[in-house]
């Protein structure tokens, strides 16, 4: 039997009459890297705040490592690490002071658990006397992660750790998560960047307080119900407009300088589309079948 780390059953949380979370249920297995993927306002932070015992659910039940998020909140707080979306650091303390502060409130020391954070913290250690407020975005992120790990949590909650972070720092951050996971820790991470889904063991795609789909990233892609084609011409603006008028198309969205257009399986005829687009004076046409990515799938689910 797989051991369950987090269990959520029909959790609802409303702000006024608006349900931020609408009867959500899911399980996270021990040692899993589980991603919550969705835009702002989807309910990601509300969920994280309930699971970290900072907010009460209106309805439903949730347990973390077998502990109830309402009754056992004190015990849960001792065993989890939490990195909120807004940085959790004290900007007027130095790098080292921040880390020492978090170690102390959990009754431990930097020395005792240094081995846990060494790979990450050693990268910012040369700046340990610098104030946190003077660090770059990527360095703040590494410090915040070190602070969330210093008390040896069994479970890590990372709420949008890569939002507003550039592509290079994002990649480095996911490399760090992969290495942490190998150490056996369970990680729940949220992100609005769809391309990060493929880096998780399993993902929940979430929108308007509801889970649209929950599976492995590969299954998300496998469940895409249409055939997808990548079409480009010299003129993306008019190409999109023309493709959207093409009979039989199910959806059509811009992806960089190309368009992704979908059709019901086995209804697509390339020569027909070519003739249609040539008539509208599109030159340098390329049309090729492609596999959908998570963003294609997310948009398809949003349209259901």
């Amino acid at each position, binding site marked *: 039997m797989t051991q369950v780390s987090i269990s959520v059953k029909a959790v609802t949380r409303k702000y006024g009459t608006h349900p931020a979370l609408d009867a959500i249920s899911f399980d996270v297995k021990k040692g899993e890297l589980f991603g919550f993927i969705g835009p702002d*306002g989807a309910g990601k932070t509300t969920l994280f705040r309930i699971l970290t015992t900072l907010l009460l659910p209106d309805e439903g039940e949730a347990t973390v490592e077998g502990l109830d998020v309402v009754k056992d909140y004190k015990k849960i707080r001792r065993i989890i690490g939490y990195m909120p979306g807004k940085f959790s650091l004290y900007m007027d303390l130095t790098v080292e002071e921040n880390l020492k502060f978090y170690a102390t409130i959990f009754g431990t020391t930097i020395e005792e658990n240094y081995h846990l954070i060494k790979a990450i913290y050693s990268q910012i250690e040369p700046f340990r006397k610098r104030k946190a407020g003077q660090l770059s975005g990527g360095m703040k992120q590494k410090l915040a992660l070190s602070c969330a790990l210093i008390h040896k949590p069994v479970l890590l909650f990372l709420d949008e750790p890569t939002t507003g*972070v550039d592509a290079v720092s994002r990649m480095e951050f996911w490399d760090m998560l992969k290495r942490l996971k190998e150490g056996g820790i369970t990680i729940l991470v949220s992100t609005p960047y769809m391309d990060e889904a493929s880096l998780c063991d399993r993902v929940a795609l979430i929108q308007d307080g509801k889970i649209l789909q929950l599976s492995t990233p590969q299954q998300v892609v496998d469940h895409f119900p249409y055939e997808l084609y990548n079409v480009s011409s010299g003129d993306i603006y008019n190409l999109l407009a023309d493709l959207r008028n093409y009979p039989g198309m199910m959806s059509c969205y811009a992806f960089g300088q190309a368009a992704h257009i979908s059709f019901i399986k086995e209804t697509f005829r390339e020569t027909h589309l070519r003739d249609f687009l040539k008539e509208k004076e599109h030159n340098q046409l390329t049309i090729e079948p492609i596999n959908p990515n998570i963003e294609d799938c997310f948009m398809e689910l949003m349209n259901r």
Partner: protein
Amino acid sequence: MVEKEDIIIVKDLVKKYGSFYANDHLSFEVKKGEIFGFLGANGAGKTTAIRILCGLSYPTSGILKVAGFDVYTQRDEIKKNIGYMSQKFSLYDDLTVFENIRFYAGIYGLSKKEIEIRSNRLMEKLILGEARDKLIRDIPQGWKQKLAFSVAIIHDPKIVFLDEPTGGVDPITRRQFWDLIYQAARDGITVFVTTHYMDEAEYCDRVTIMVEGRIAALDTPEALKKRYNSANMNEVFLHLARTKVLS
């Protein structure tokens, strides 16, 4: 093709904080009606440069003209001729849709009659009619984004600066937002935009990639992909930003 006029001219822009060069001799021009992407890692100096171009901060040295006006001596003129929108701050949550429009239009100096006409036109265009008297905090995220952009160009500015306008937005809204950007560009408004989404970099006419206060590359997305032998802009960006980090 007739060469379009330069609406932004930057020559040798330097901005120092103490001994640190936030902008280290930047030079570039932006053409009228162009969608100009301004990319770079966190701390590369993007926001510093945008603040200077918007007349919110003085450069240490360099020659800069925005919409034909000098950034040292004609900052009020610049502010009248530009629009600005960022993800972090744009609309007032506790004002209604119409109150926000009226507020911004008023700030930009439009007359009462003009405000009435333009706000009605805007509501029609965004199909926001029924939301006119709703508080911003009660309307969906996607509407907010589009409204914030429309408000930023309600005074028909020559240039609009968009600082990470689509961060955290769902993928469909993100694309609808770019439709609005294209429309504005076709109406002759120059668009100066920053983003962390690399697919959006490909929607730009030309892209600048900043690395540590300098321009590491400036060209069309097509040319950049060719030059760095990359399939997409994400690879181009990683190539430039990472080479620098490792060196």
